[in-house]
């Protein structure tokens, strides 16, 4: 898969930057983590009718299982990625200490999105199509397959409005020395973590309110 992307975007579309293989490899790995987690949690409540009709349980349990499963899978992929990157670069930068922090922020963001949409989608299943479309849009807007410098300057400056693009940029800074983590990045990561936590809190409250209505919806 990565190979296909690499060939298409580097040869056919004539995008050339230094370390382009690394660039795609790093961006795709972390994008896939986010994308898979959100995707598998979207329908998690819908598919758990069997449990929901039998046991009174916090409905956020189901997206949590989905996110957790993908977290474990992705951690394996990320470990492999780090080994590959370190071996090919022959060095480790002190910037690697930022990696766990960025990972935690991405996890918080993923959980927030997964919780929120998994709670809402059973009420209106068609919404799933829309979420898919938005995710696709985010994928192309996140500079995964092309260097971020190719984007218009206006968008580059406002990258913080697309958390995924921002997180991916941080990973590249850390792993392939594409820059350093600045104070501004730290400020932004902190902000993203706080907003995500607030959304998670909100979904917990929302679950208390609507948790017992899912059986009625799912029985239709």
């Amino acid at each position, binding site marked *: 898969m990565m190979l296909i992307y690499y060939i298409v975007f580097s040869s056919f579309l004539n995008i050339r930057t230094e370390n382009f293989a690394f660039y795609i490899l790093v961006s795709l790995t972390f994008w896939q983590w986010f994308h898979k987690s959100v995707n598998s949690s979207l329908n998690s409540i819908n598919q758990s009718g*069997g449990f929901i*009709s*039998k*046991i009174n349980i916090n409905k956020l349990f189901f997206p949590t299982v989905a996110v957790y499963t993908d977290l474990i899978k992705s951690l394996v992929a990320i470990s492999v990625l780090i080994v590959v990157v370190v071996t090919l670069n022959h060095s480790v930068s002190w910037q690697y200490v930022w990696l766990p922090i960025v990972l935690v922020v991405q996890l918080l963001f993923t959980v927030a999105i997964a919780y929120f949409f998994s709670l809402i989608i059973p*009420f209106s299943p068609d919404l799933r199509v829309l979420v898919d479309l938005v995710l696709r849009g985010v994928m192309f807007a996140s500079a995964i397959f092309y260097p971020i410098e190719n984007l218009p300057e206006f968008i580059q400056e406002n990258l913080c409005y697309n958390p995924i693009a921002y997180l991916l940029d941080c990973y590249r800074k850390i792993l392939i020395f594409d820059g350093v983590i600045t104070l501004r990045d730290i400020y932004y990561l902190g902000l993203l973590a706080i907003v995500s936590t607030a959304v998670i809190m909100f979904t917990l409250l929302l679950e208390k309110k609507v948790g017992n209505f899912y059986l009625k919806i799912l029985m239709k």
Partner: protein
Amino acid sequence: MKKKVLSLNAVSVGYKTRNRPFSKTKTILKDISFDIFSHETIGVYGGNGAGKSTLLSVIAGVMAPDSGQIETFGSTIALLNLNLGLDNALSGKQNIFLHGLFLGFKPSEIKKKIDSIIHFSELKEFIDEPVYTYSSGMKARLGFSTVYQLNTDLILIDEMLGVGDQHFKRKSNYALKQKIKSNQTVVLVSHNIKQLKHLSDRIIVLEGGKIKDILSAAKFDLIPE
């Protein structure tokens, strides 16, 4: 005085006929109030669509009433119905654990019971295989045995006095009847009035979502067979 296990106070449940803001609401249960005391068996009788299964869902806590209150006094409640609630990717043993944890048991308590559950289900050779390799009868056995062996304060039985093949059906039916006759608190839903009269201490007659009558054992003859 007998200890209350559960108490319902003016419970009503309605469905929207369509998922739209101003669509009509169809009432399923209306103003249901009764108490369940420990060690008693309550039969719920009513035709199709009288609200029997919905009533069990409300008692089990999986469906919130639109109005009215339910007080559970901290009792653990298990629902036995055709819906199994198994995770297909997990093994039989893991499913027993999962179900036990969902019902509020501690891992140590489940560990103590697990051998008797496996023994009762007669699925010893298959218990470490993932559940998707099971036949539907085997899944039913597993679900039944788990709920049967873990002693919850209250068992809700929805038209299911026996599962599986003929041999296991007879065995589970017998076991459950023994349990009902013992000190177990049970709510039993059935069309089979003969069986209800035989097993229950009180019978609640539901009609069109309302309680038509609550009969004690002496008045069972009022219900025609």
